Every structure is written in structure tokens, then in C-alpha cells.
């Protein structure tokens, strides 16, 4: 290995080690520490100057107390379950909204498709925070949606939407929609139309051909899209904090409050560690799916 190669690999490697891996080590360490009224608010602190004896002493003081605390307090496991539930429901609705859009895009004429594509990506570049905020004014009790529905006479009294789980679902569907549409569109666009024509020639109605040919063949895009919405939705903070109510339990919000309001760093760190462990499952499944797809194509 020559010197240039070492420098080339070393710079990004060192950066990621120092600012990505080491911080996780610290989170793990603090998750195993005790809360203390001090700055920083946890013990024990590692003192490298103390040598081997100090290290042994340090390790012997670590314990799983915080994890035991998470298991005994209802709040935490309810928040994890509720995050998974909210993410699942929102993913389902994102699919329901996204699939027809992706399908419509794949049917549009070739000259229109790049424009449609840009229109899907454009919101993705605009601030996430602003896109969530836009819904506050719409879903309010005196908001535009209620004014509209009242004006049409569809409802007699305003619906309470803001600060409920429904608002959180709407927020997630709205902000993550491009993640669902793009992979589905990518698979639908490549579909061979003669397959549908063959199905129709063989006696299928147009809907049967769609259901029996197009939908199964779009499976890979649907799976990829669902994971791309589900994974980030679990740890979401901004949407439940802004659109959800006090009853909306999501683990990202719990972690934030544990850290900023309760100032309990060890518990916040333990919450983060468990959240990561939960996320490993869908991430591994997602990567397996991608791998299979690549192998099928290659």
C-alpha cells in the first residue's frame, strides 16, 4: 500500500469513524451509565489518565439499569409500539395514494413524463418543515378544510383534526409521498405493454389484466417504496411534534423530550439504542429485497 492510497482512503474513513462511529460508542456508554446531578449529567466518566485500573473501575460501574427502567415503565414500550403502528398505517395510506399517481405517470405520453417526474421531485427539495407547517393552517379547527366542508354543508360542526393521530397520518403521507411514487413508477415504466394486451386477448377485462398482470409485476417497486416510507417514519420527530397531540406517542418525540425537557441523558441514550435495534430488522429486509432485485436484473 503506497502513501497516496493511505491518505485517499484515510481521510473519509477517519472522518466517519470520528463523527459517526465514535459518537455511537458514546451513546452506548452513556446508556449504560447512571443519571447524576452534574455536568455532564451522568456517571461514571472515563478518565484515561488513570490507566488500566481506572478502565476496569469504569467498566465495573456500567450497568443495564436504564434498559430495565425502559422495560418497566409503560411509556416507553407503548411509544415504540405506537410508532410502529403509526408508521404501518401511514405506509399503507401512502401506498394507496401513491400507486395511482405512479400508475398514471407511467401511462402518460413520453414527452410528459420528465415534467411529471420533476413535479414529483420538486416538493422534495422544498423544506420539510415548511411542508409540515402548511398543514397546520389547513387542519385547524377554524382552518381552511373545515371552512370548506362547512361551506359545502357536508358537516355541521368543525372536525377536530389538528393535534390528533389523523393529522400525523396526513403529514407522513404528504411528506413521504415522493419516496413511494418514485420506485413504483420506476418498475411500472419498464413494464412491457404487450403482456397486458395478451391478457386482454385471452379474455381478461381491462381491470383483470391490471390486477393479474400489472400489480404483481410492480411488486418490487411497491416493496421498496413501502420500506422507504416505513423506516424513516418510525423515528419521525417533526410531524408528531407539530401535527400530533399530547396523546400521540412516537418514540422520536419521547427521546427529544427525555433529552431536552427531562435532561435525562442516560435514559435518552437507552431509548436511542433500542430504537436502533428495532430499525435493524426493516433495514436488513429492505437491503435483502434490493439485493434480490439487482441479482434478478443482472
Amino acid at each position: 500500500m503506497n502513501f497516496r492510497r493511505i491518505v485517499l482512503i484515510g481521510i473519509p474513513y477517519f472522518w466517519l469513524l470520528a463523527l459517526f462511529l465514535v459518537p455511537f460508542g458514546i451513546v452506548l456508554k452513556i446508556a449504560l451509565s447512571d443519571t447524576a446531578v452534574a455536568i455532564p449529567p451522568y456517571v461514571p466518566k472515563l478518565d484515561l489518565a488513570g490507566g488500566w485500573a481506572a478502565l476496569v473501575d469504569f467498566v465495573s460501574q456500567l450497568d443495564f439499569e436504564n434498559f430495565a427502567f425502559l422495560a418497566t415503565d409503560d411509556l416507553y414500550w407503548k411509544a415504540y409500539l405506537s410508532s410502529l403502528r403509526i408508521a404501518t398505517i401511514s405506509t399503507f395510506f401512502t401506498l394507496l395514494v401513491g400507486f395511482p399517481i405512479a400508475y398514471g405517470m407511467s401511462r402518460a405520453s413520453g414527452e410528459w413524463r420528465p415534467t411529471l417526474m420533476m413535479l414529483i421531485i420538486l416538493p422534495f427539495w422544498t423544506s420539510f418543515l415548511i411542508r409540515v407547517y402548511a398543514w397546520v393552517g389547513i387542519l385547524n379547527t377554524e382552518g381552511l378544510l373545515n371552512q370548506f366542508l362547512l361551506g359545502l354543508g357536508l358537516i355541521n360542526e368543525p372536525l377536530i383534526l389538528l393535534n390528533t393521530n389523523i393529522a400525523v397520518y396526513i403529514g407522513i403521507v404528504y411528506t413521504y409521498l415522493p419516496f413511494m411514487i418514485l420506485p413504483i413508477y420506476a418498475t411500472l415504466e419498464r413494464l412491457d405493454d404487450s403482456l397486458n394486451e395478451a391478457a386482454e386477448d385471452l379474455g381478461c377485462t381491462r381491470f383483470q389484466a391490471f390486477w393479474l398482470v400489472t400489480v404483481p409485476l410492480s411488486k418490487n417497486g411497491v416493496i421498496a417504496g413501502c420500506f422507504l416510507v416505513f423506516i424513516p417514519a418510525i423515528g419521525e420527530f417533526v410531524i408528531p411534534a407539530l401535527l400530533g397531540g399530547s396523546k400521540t406517542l412516537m418514540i422520536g418525540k419521547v427521546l427529544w423530550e427525555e433529552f431536552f425537557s427531562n435532561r435525562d441523558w442516560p435514559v435518552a441514550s437507552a431509548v436511542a439504542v433500542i430504537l436502533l435495534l428495532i430499525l435493524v430488522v426493516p433495514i436488513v429486509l429492505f437491503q435483502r429485497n434490493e439485493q434480490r432485485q439487482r441479482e434478478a436484473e443482472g
Partner: protein
Amino acid sequence: MRRFTWFNATSLTLGFAFLYLPMIILVVYSFNASKLVTVWAGFSTKWYGELFRNEAFLDAAWVTLRVAVISSTLATVLGTLAAYVLVRAGRFRGRTLFSGMIYAPLVMPEVITGLSLLLLFIAIGLDRGVTTIVLAHTTFSMCYVSVVVSSRLASFDRSLEEAALDLGCTPFDAFRSVTLPVIAPAVISGWLLAFTLSLDDLVIASFTSGPSATTLPIKIWSSIRLGVSPEINALSTILIGIVATGVISASLISKRAALQRERDLHKAVRT
């Protein structure tokens, strides 16, 4: 022949209405004369005036812009380097860990990234401020840059580089005069992606900023927690306008460049 049915037309119309109406409403109500966001009281640009007189917002905008420019530039350099290592460096010890560290931040919840970086900064005694936000943003956006650049590098014909080396270029010259021009579009879009990620970030910036440095998203956050305000609508409109102009003009420029290439090709074939 693909059929474009009524169902397709309806779902596209409704879909795009869903995507764009909330933002259009936001923009329209930024010109509302009333302080109440839900009551229309005539056209006015007074909230824009208020916005530009608000020192706190201007300071935050300046901090955000500085952080975004520095961190996206650093992230582009590091991310391109990382992409080069991933695609070109072959096997080396710890390669799996390296590619893991590139891909993991993309799926990491922001609250965890923010928390872990903050704990690091405190552990090493770094004062929280512009520097720490820049370090944090550089770290997560370099991963996005390297994904964008490495997909371009992977599809690039390596024999061109080898030819340059055979003709006497140093590896650095070959990179600068052959590889870089080819991957330049990916590097530029990587920079833009890093820039918008940094402009947009609330969670990681909240963890890693100190009292000395407030970014625009943090400022927006603290004022919208109190409810809808027309000033924030005005600010949002400006931000949406900048992004829309940027994205649309970028796509027009690349479309024109593609057309130009095609025309040149035709000319070359004819002569």
C-alpha cells in the same frame, strides 16, 4: 400502445392537487392583510416588510447560509473522495465497515444522529455553535453526496482513466482532467443536495447548536410551535420561490445542454 384513461387523468390531477395545494395556500396567505391566517382581508405585502425588519430572522438566515455553504462544500469534497474509495480503491482492510458507515446515516433517525453528535461534542469539550453544526451537517450530507457520486462513477468507463495514465498523466492529473469532468454533474447535484439538506435541517441543528448560533429552521420551529403566523408564511414563500426557481432552471439548463449535444452530434455525422 399505452392507454391514458380517465382514471389515470383523475388520479394525476388529484395527486398533484394534494401535493401542491397546501403550498399554494401557504403562499397565497402570505399576502393576506389580516393577522389571522384563516380570514382573508385583502392583498398586502406588509408581512414581507415585517420579516425584513426582524433582526432575529435575518441573523438566523445569515447563520444558516454560512453553515450550508461551508458544510455542503466540505461534504462534497469528502463525499466525492469516499465515493472514489468505494468504487475505485478495490479491497482494503475495513472496507465493509467503511461502506456501512456511508450507508447507515441515510437511514438513521435524525434524533439519534443529533443526540450522538451532541454527546461527542460535549465529551471532547467543543463549544456548541456554528462549528459544531457545520461538522454535524458535513457528516450526514457527505454520505448523500457519496451515494450520488458513486453511482455515476460506477457507470463510467474506466479505460479512459487508464488511457490517460498510459499517456503519462499522474494519477492526480488523470483524475482532474478525465474523471472529474465526467462525474461533474453528479458532484454538482451532490453539492446542491447537501446544501438543501443543510438549509432544511431542524433536528440535528437543534441538538448541535448552542445559544450563540440559531439557524433559520430552529427559529421557524420556535415560532410555529405557538401557531400559524403570516410572517412565517412570507418566509416560507421566499424559500419555496428560491427552490422552485433553482430546480426549474437547473432542469431547463440540462435539457438545453442535452439538445445542444444532440445537434452537435447530428452536425458531426453530416460533415
